[in-house]
């Protein structure tokens, strides 16, 4: 068993490895960590790199893979790449859920029967409130896509992101009613704070955190390996380096061991304080 595997088994390192598939997005959300939008540099991970990372992660003892962006489904290869990754480790994909027209949905057939889940953002039960932060027609597209994904056998989680207290008890109850009606159970609905990085800084939003307050999930992007998917964020066009672990990502054991070293001495449990686990 590798040192990394021992640390994961002991709970000293989280078991998930993240990948930033790309940085470009069809949306430009006001709280986006990565200033993603149409036309920004793609900074895409090649498909074969993504599969290599997953394969090496499994060998190192990691237990699951997260894929995020940008909007990963802007990458044409993503469904087949995800299918290959999911054959190696359980896989979790963050998508804005707005691209799933009939053509793209058909391409998801390769994921049938795989251990894969999509996480889609839905920030309010009210379309206008939701769309204010996420863009026009976002609510309608997401509400349309979720049942169609579930029909195809894809597990869908809903993430509600916002400032603490923004969602009233009534809003929350109506949102839960909505996700249940779409086929998403309560255990697959998470509420999380905005993290004060990326575009959230421009809009003076979000919660500030220290590295020791967030899970030390290994996150690989085209710019290197980072401490958590909150690491390779972008502000004013510059990739943040404060949570950079290493530029080297191949073999994965290099950043994994460096991350393990960085984790040394970090107090346990602080990451749950601000609720972004």
């Amino acid at each position, binding site marked *: 068993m590798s040192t990394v595997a021992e640390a994961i088994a002991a709970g000293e390192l989280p078991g998930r490895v993240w990948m930033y598939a790309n940085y470009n997005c069809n949306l430009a959300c006001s709280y986006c960590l990565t200033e993603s939008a149409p036309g920004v540099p793609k900074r895409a991970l090649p498909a074969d790199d993504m599969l290599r990372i997953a394969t090496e992660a499994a060998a190192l003892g990691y237990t699951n893979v997260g894929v995020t962006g940008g909007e990963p489904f802007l990458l044409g290869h993503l469904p087949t790449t995800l299918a290959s990754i999911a054959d190696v480790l359980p896989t979790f994909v963050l998508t804005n859920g707005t691209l799933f027209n009939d053509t793209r949905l058909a391409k998801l057939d390769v994921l049938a029967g795989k251990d894969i889940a999509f996480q889609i953002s839905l920030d309010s039960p009210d379309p206008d409130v939701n769309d204010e932060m996420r863009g026009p027609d976002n609510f309608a597209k997401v509400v349309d896509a979720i049942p169609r994904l579930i029909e195809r056998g894809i597990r869908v989680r809903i993430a509600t992101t916002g400032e603490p207290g923004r969602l009233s008890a009534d809003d929350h109850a109506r949102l839960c009613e909505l996700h249940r009606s779409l086929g998403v159970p309560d255990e697959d609905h998470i509420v999380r704070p905005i993290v004060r990085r990326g575009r959230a800084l421009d809009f003076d939003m979000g919660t500030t955190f220290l590295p020791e307050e967030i899970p030390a999930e290994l996150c690989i992007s085209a710019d290197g390996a980072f401490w958590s998917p909150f690491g390779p964020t972008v502000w004013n066009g510059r990739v943040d*380096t404060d949570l950079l*672990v*290493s530029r*080297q990502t191949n073999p994965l054991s290099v950043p994994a061991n460096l991350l393990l070293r960085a984790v040394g001495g970090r107090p346990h449990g602080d990451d749950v304080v601000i609720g972004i686990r």
Partner: protein
Amino acid sequence: MTPRVELLNAENAPLLARPFFAGGDPGPIAASMATVPELLDVAMPFLGAALGPSSIPLRPKELVILRTSALLSCRYCVAAHTPVAIDAGLTRAEVEALRDERPVVEGFTDAKELALLGWVDAVATGTGPVDDAIADEMATHWPDHHLVELTVLIGATMLLNRYCSALGLPNSEETISRLAVEGYASGVVADAEPHPTTGATAAPVPVAVTVRP
């Protein structure tokens, strides 16, 4: 000269690079190399071992560093190590000789130091094996383990010379002020002239502001 790469600071320093920023500004070498933290992580201890205190006294080490830096026309390193050489007890004539502002024999008469400077010149500017006569003279005065260490020191200094010059790293205000106090107008002699041995050139330095930070 504007640095060609970003110099990180304590706020955006990567996790593994943070110890280098714990005492404040770590200087432009570490601040630039921090963008590749896994490289910084091994390079700085190596450079510290090569250039820092060791079994060889400070004076001969500074002879090597300053002479090599002058031979490679590294304005940053010459400027940074001129005060260090002065603090190591070198006379003005010695410093000027090392900086190539006067012939070496005008600054140095000790056979052991001349042997070392011959070795530095041969290693830093030559290609292929070092001439036997130079090597024999060196071996007369310096044991093998010092020869190894000093040769590593020359190589490490050359690495830094090229790194600092290529990336246009700025000297600190402290260095610039100290040079002014000591009456050194710039970090490199004959800034715009090719070095007579190496052909290397340094960018012109405005005389009025001495070394550009």
